[in-house]
């Protein structure tokens, strides 16, 4: 450490306390330990992954009413089908280009976009399915996947650079509202299909 650096450091740290002299001792002693050996004090914690996701009870009790079927609903349908004639959306509304994934980045011009419906699967099943799809994609290099899931863990996609759509299901257990949810899901799927220009949605759902 040269003189200027040391002066600068002292000046900055001195602002933190009035006890400049004592701090200087600390810094000087640290500066003299430049050849200090790296000690492994972390052995006992090796490989530990600390997870602490506590469930936080809401401060207020929220009674979520599940989605109801779209009331108006005609606009999204019209826009998908007819935005050029009835320009409700301020753009041409061309389909989006999904990312082909980290391992297949060069396949971004693959001609086919395929949807994979993984709803109803847990994280382990999803992981397996994504690995399999990735393997096929690497092999054939003619499609880009877009995953559709309803479970709330996204690492399988994020770490691989895949696009996924999350459509929550089973918000309510009541049969009537379950039907409404299914209709909502159907609307969302139609939109997702148009949005990514999916040739098909392959149903791998459980």
């Amino acid at each position: 450490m040269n003189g200027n650096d040391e002066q600068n450091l002292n000046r900055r740290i001195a602002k933190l306390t009035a006890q400049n002299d004592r701090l200087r001792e600390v810094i000087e002693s640290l500066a003299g330990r430049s050849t200090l050996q790296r000690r492994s004090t972390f052995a006992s914690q090796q490989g530990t992954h600390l997870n602490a996701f506590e469930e936080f009870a809401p401060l207020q009790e929220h009674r979520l009413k599940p989605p109801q079927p779209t009331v108006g609903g005609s606009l999204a349908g019209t826009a998908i089908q007819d935005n050029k004639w009835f320009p409700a959306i301020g753009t041409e509304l061309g389909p989006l280009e999904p990312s082909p994934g980290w391992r297949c980045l060069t396949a971004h011009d693959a001609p086919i976009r395929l949807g994979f419906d993984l709803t109803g699967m847990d994280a382990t099943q999803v992981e397996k399915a994504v690995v399999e799809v990735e393997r096929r994609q690497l092999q054939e290099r003619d499609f880009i996947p877009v995953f559709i899931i309803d479970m709330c863990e996204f690492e399988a996609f994020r770490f691989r650079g895949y696009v996924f759509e999350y459509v929550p299901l089973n918000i309510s257990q009541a049969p009537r509202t379950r039907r409404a949810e299914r209709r909502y899901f159907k609307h969302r799927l139609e939109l997702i299909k148009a949005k990514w220009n999916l040739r098909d949605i392959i149903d791998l759902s459980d």
Partner: protein
Amino acid sequence: MIENSLYLEEVSIPGGPERQFDVLVFSDLRFPGGTSTSVSGALRCLKRGGYDVGLIHVASSVFSTNRPFHPEIVATIGEGCARLVPPSSQLLVSQLALFQNPLAFRTPLNIPFRVKAEKALLVLNQPVTNAVGEPYYDLETAIDHCQRVAHTDVTVAPISGISRDNFQKSSPRERNILTEDWTEIIDASAFTVDRRRFCGDFPVIGRHSRPGDEKWPGTADEMLAAYPARADVRVRILGVGPKVKELVGTPPSNWDVFHFGDLDVRYFLSTIDFWVYFHDPTWVESFGRAIAEAMASGAVTLLPKHFERNFSNGAIYCEPAEVLDVVDHLYRHPKEFRNWSERARTVIENDYSGDRYLERVHRLIGPPKNRVGDFDSTDDAASVDDKRPIAIGGATSQAPNTKQRYLDVVYMGDFCSGEEDWPRAAEEIGQLRRYRLKIGLVHLPAASTTRTVNADLLAQVHDGAAEPVNPMRSVINAKSVVLTVSTLEKILAERPIHHVFADQVVVLCDGLFGTESWPSFLHWLQQQVAEMFGGRCLFSAVRPSQYRVLQSANSVLPIGPPWVISAFKSGSETLRRTVRSIAPDLPWRVGMFSHPDESAGQSSTATGTDFIVPDDVWQAWWYGCPPTPPEQGEEMVFIDSTEMTVERFLAKVDAVAVLPSACRNGASYSAAWKALHSGLPVILPESWREDFGPGPLYRQPTEYRDTLRQLTDRPGFGREILNHAAFQLERTGASASDNHRKTAEALTAQVEPKPVRLRHSRRRRVLFMSSNGVGVGHLSRLIAIARRLPDPADPVFLSLSQALPIVRQFGFHGEFLPYHLSTLSDYEDWNGWLQLTLEQIFDAYSVGTVVFDGNMPYSGLCRAVSTRNNCRLVWVRRGMWRPDQDNTTHLSRSRFADLIIEPEDIASEWDTGEAASQRHEVVVVDPIRVLDADEILTRKESCRHLGLNQRKRYALIQLGAGNNYSNVDLIDRVVSSLGEIGKVQPVIAEWLTAEAPLDLWPEVPRLRCYPISRYYRAFDFTISAVGYNSFNEIISFGLPSVLVPNLNQMMDDQSARASYADSHQAAIHLDSDLRPMLREVIAAIHDDELRRNMIKGSRKLARPNGAQDAASIVARVAGIAGDPK
């Protein structure tokens, strides 16, 4: 020569050799004041008596030729009270000829037909001489001219005792004079005011009159005696003029002064107790209509002695100096006051009622001989064909897709155009929805346009009130098609419609009457409509003035009911008031309307340069473009009619001003109506008075700015204007609903259609939407707010951040959408799909409020919200933007937010970003944190939860997700340094949104949890990035820290935060100078005393949690009942 001959020809009865009338009324129909009011009253009264009246316009030399008829006259013609006599008539026969106001007959009457009247009266609406005997006109000449027309002796008819005295004093010759006064008609019931209580805590003296000099007392002493400048008396003057300024200078503080016409007289009279009137001694007031109106309202009236001739014992007659004593006395003796009030009313009811007038007419000519309506039968026959069946797949070509659509009503036009009044059509559709009609929208796009569909129409589509129907995809069969003449012209010129068939087509006449040949043009349109749509044609007009003109021609055209929307539903008032109460210091905003073409210089008008510009109090918000582009530095906001509904726009402004050029801006007319209904002061050009009547303020454009300043400088004036408008709208409420019923009836051919009550979902959820973000700051703030909302809020989340699991962790339902950076797509394309997805989500969850946290509301979000009337947008916008960023676009999105909340930063003092200069448009709350202090676990609990040994020392490394800069090298250096020192165990915080796991240091435990601050006490210090959440939590919860800013250009000003804390001895800022000495800095923070001092420094900077305040604000904007927790 009769002027307005074209007008007369088209709106009058058909000409013919001889016409019989009971009464013929001759007058110059352009008189601006009492004479025309008097004539209108007489016409209505005669109609009530069953008399058939012919009206003859005498174009006197009093006015210039281009002055229009008085609106009241036009209205009475429209009501069928009288018919204009065309020049083509040859002989008019009547029992009585009434010549109104001698001023109109000073020159010979050039009338191309003969008149044969049994009796003739010259009504003295104007005195012959002034008080000192100087003549106003030559009465003998006027009588002579009238006699030549009537071919009989003319009897002079004074209108009051004063008028009689004046005539008798001034007339040198013996003339026939009517033995009884031909008194004016006052409908006392229209003015009645409940006088059981006084208007206020002080007596309120008032007067109304034209502002002419002759209407005021001659001296300042008299003026101030009659209208005292005293704090314990309120004086209200409607019709203030230059004479007032001349005599008393600036009106005293206890005076409320208004321009003539600013307030409706009936409203004005309901705000005063005493009516006091003294005029110039040289002036002769023949009758005193204003006096009679005041008396009819029951205001106790104080007048000069000479008025006793007219008003007998109905008023108190005194000198100006006695006014105050009389007022004081009666105010202290309410019973006596009420007694006088009742006397005033009785005099008017007895002496000036319509019944008295009819009795006089009856005494002169007996009962009516010509039944009113003799000419109507032929009109009807010419106007309406038999109903045609719906033509399906008619003679013209078939649609490519032969699917049939059956609809009740189809609205047709270029919905992207800014010239048509689509907000009016949208309002109409909203009203018609109550009749359960199936309504379709057939868009006729212009050849080349980049504009989207009008926002108000989209709002109706969102509500399910109407649906777009493409005629190229199906054959449309409708009971009614509604379009404007302009649209019809375009269709005929550019593209005939082949796939729409209708029973009837309602053609709304918009601005057609400037042309000379409009009747024949409408006839031609009628034929075209029949050919194109296969149905009959019905004409109507939106503006009352246009409808009256149209209606006057009903002998030749099929006329529908008035297409007048006079009651607008509006929820903007509630929102505006809520926002104002939350943020009283927001700048005042005036909503301006002009015509879009003006900005392109295509049609600059003389008035274009006179538009108001913002001053230091008022900010101009333009709906459409301003007449001239703003100069540099002028703060203006521009909103296009395709971007935002009128209702949303009105919720953002405090007043509305319409420029004359806006006549061609489609939205301005209905926007002005809607503004009135939503409780906004409205300033209009004088030319709009006929369509709006009392309620708005009518001004020259050059006066707009002063009027706006009056609204802010004199809150009482503003309140008055609003009360007055509300009073007017209440009066018209009944006729408004009647209009809607008539419209529905005309469109569906139903008799008496019954509206149904629409069921609206009471639950309007709050949707919390977070942008992607590098960390989880946006989502964290939203969670902090959501968990403090009261019960009914029922929050739902929409996250573009993959940290969605934390939303579930807090018990909320959430949805996720991939951000555009996770795709290879264009940002605008992504926004389009975002809009559509949002619309699905809004509908599915009944979203009433969106709370967005992000640096810039996406255009897709803005459009989705702004094309709905029932969805509000709150933008949570944290500060500390980097000063070197260009955030112009970000800030321009403010216009879409109904409210902006700025969660303050502990380091706000050092905020030099662009947002800091816009603090005037935000509500500031304390820094928002997810957890309150009492939710932070103790060291023991923290270690237990995390599985750490509480006897050991730990350092938390939280250097971000590493998604927009590589943090691996830095973490490695920190871990190495800590290892070298060997006293403290590092723990690496792994971000929930990280694109790769931080598993490069197998000996270092990784922490995955949320919110990390809950476990801060497990750690002795932290090496941390300086995002909003980390920083504010570290300082607020007193965790010693080395702060390492993320210097990516896209980030907030993390360096400023770290420097601020460093300068307050609350942390060490590891800036670029110190980075090479990372190990030394980390070694320094191992020192216990240094850390204790940091904790002390942090405590000094710590701020309360602003989440609760933010939740309260969101709850209020969302209209959620209950107190937030």
